[in-house]
């Protein structure tokens, strides 16, 4: 919640928004399979980035274990579809629900930690689940599991789009409701928030569970889309890292920032990965370094600064450098 935001939704903004919405809905009718897939991938990362922003950016609790819930969503969806012949929608719902429940339980423990310790603990949880999934039979162990094949691809496009809209809506609504005020206060100064009547833990759990539900949704759709999942693929910290970088790139202060970051970076990423994985990693690594040094509050913040880009960058350096 930053001061001065909200001018975005002027008349012109609404028109653009409506146009984008219509475009997104009819896109599969216009474009070929390759582009529909690309868009679905972008939506997925927009979803993950927006979800991460709820707990990481907005509440200030950098969660690095979000993929734990992506995995829970993926495997729950898979197991129900394969063993209980549950239709996708219901299986996905169950996956999201389970992810949220686990998040409430784990969150009530982990959210008592702060800063670095919270970050590592969440990562630890992710790794525990990854290894657990590799050891259990019901998940197919280390060999992974196969899901039924869907009839058309566009199913995933719309499911992912829907989940993305949900995530962005949550990010948009949060600063405007009571829970959002509590979380912002917690982010800014948790001790001051407490003496003003806020009991932090329940609110933090809400943000954390929201993040988990959305990661779970992404996981369930991903599982059905790729028809094969195994522990290292879904319980993979890389999802979170990308979500964080995209959020930082686009700016964590707005609901649109993470999505903007996802669109730009995922597109670039796809172009580069087509060259080679090495290229992709080098680009990504260099990008992260450059980004955090020169533009830690995101490109959006820089764009918003009056005056030259150079001055904004210098200001950032001045503030952060020893």
């Amino acid at each position, binding site marked *: 919640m930053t001061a001065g935001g909200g001018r975005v939704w002027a008349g012109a903004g609404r028109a653009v928004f409506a146009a984008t919405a219509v475009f997104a809905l009819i896109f599969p009718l216009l474009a070929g399979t390759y582009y529909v897939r690309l868009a679905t991938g972008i939506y997925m990362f927009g979803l993950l980035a927006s979800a991460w922003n709820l707990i990481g950016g907005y509440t200030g609790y950098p969660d690095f274990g979000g993929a734990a819930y992506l995995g829970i969503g993926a495997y729950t969806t898979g197991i129900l579809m394969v063993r209980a012949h549950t239709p996708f929608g219901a299986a996905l719902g169950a996956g999201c629900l389970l992810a949220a429940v686990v998040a409430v339980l784990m969150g009530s423990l982990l959210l008592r*930690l702060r800063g670095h310790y919270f970050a590592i603990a969440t990562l630890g949880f992710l790794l*525990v689940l990854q290894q657990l999934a590799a050891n259990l039979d019901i998940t197919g162990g280390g060999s992974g599991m196969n899901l039924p094949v869907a009839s058309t691809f566009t199913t995933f496009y719309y499911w992912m789009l829907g989940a993305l809209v949900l995530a962005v809506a949550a990010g948009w609504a949060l600063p405007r409701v009571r829970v959002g005020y509590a979380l912002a206060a917690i982010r800014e100064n948790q001790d001051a928030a407490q003496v003003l009547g806020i009991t932090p833990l329940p609110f933090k759990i809400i943000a954390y569970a929201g993040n988990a539900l959305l990661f779970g949704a992404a996981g369930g759709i991903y599982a059905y889309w790729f028809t094969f999942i195994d522990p290292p693929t879904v319980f993979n910290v890389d999802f979170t890292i990308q979500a964080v970088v995209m959020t930082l790139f686009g700016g964590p202060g707005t609901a649109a920032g993470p999505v903007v970051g996802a669109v730009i970076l995922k597109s670039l990423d796809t172009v580069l990965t087509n060259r080679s994985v090495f290229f992709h990693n080098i680009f990504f690594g*260099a990008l992260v*370094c450059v980004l*955090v040094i020169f533009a830690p509050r995101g490109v959006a913040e820089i764009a918003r600064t009056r005056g030259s880009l150079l001055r904004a960058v210098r200001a950032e*350096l001045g503030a*952060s450098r020893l």
Partner: protein
Amino acid sequence: MSVQTQIALQNALNGLLIGGTYATVALGFSLVWGILNVVNLAHGALVMLGAYTTYWLFTLFGVDPFLSLPLTGAALFVFGYCVQRGIINQVMRAPFLITFLLTFGLELLITNIAQAAWTADFRSVTTVYSGRSLSVGPLTLPIVRGASLLIAFVVAILLHVLLTRTRLGTAIRATASDQEAARLMGIPIARVYAITFGIAAASAGVAGGLISLSFPVFPAMGAGYTLIGFVVCVLGGLGSVPGALLGGLLLGLLQTYAASWLGPNYDNIVAFSALILVLLVRPAGLLGRVQRFRG
């Protein structure tokens, strides 16, 4: 003695031996975290560079890996100093998420450049004495691992002496304790941070060199060691050399016993469950002081 006891004792020995390696890996990590308040996700990459340095010195010039350790340490010191002074220094005052991501980016760069330069093939450093073991009563003690444990202690002692009995060490600890006050007293904190990081990189390099004798060397090997650094620091406490030692040995024992009872596929589950437990019950670690965190 019974077979049970023998197995238990061998496990204990193996645990201590591997724990010594963990401790050496974690020393540098703990130093950077405790003193600079930076969680260095590229630490494992530094270990990897140390391993490759030892490998190449051995393969190209025939330098014995134990003898080349000081060289590896020096090389990594210079590298670490430059990286901190030039890159990480830019974000020392930013919220910790920023430095977290920066070191992550560095890790990606270092690992991938290494892969481009040296391919992903597994290498190993095999000397004349690599496979030999000593018999200590009913137990087997591989020579290389035993020597590694000894060196781990030596490095820990050196580091401890440096921190507590030299002027540099006092400057380092003062800066960690109160950056502003240290600066006001004329301590060149940018340089102190760079030296500290250099020392940490050197110890990571030495750890890498020791590792190259017993484990395969490949560009992606670092990530696992960064994680180990985390767990050891949480178990033993930050900014504490004895803590890193204790934490490392403890983790080594935990993992070895877990592997022995539950099977090899439970090592992460055990390690990280222990980590979460310790964080919840005693966040400062077994020997650590309560750490002021930033952001």
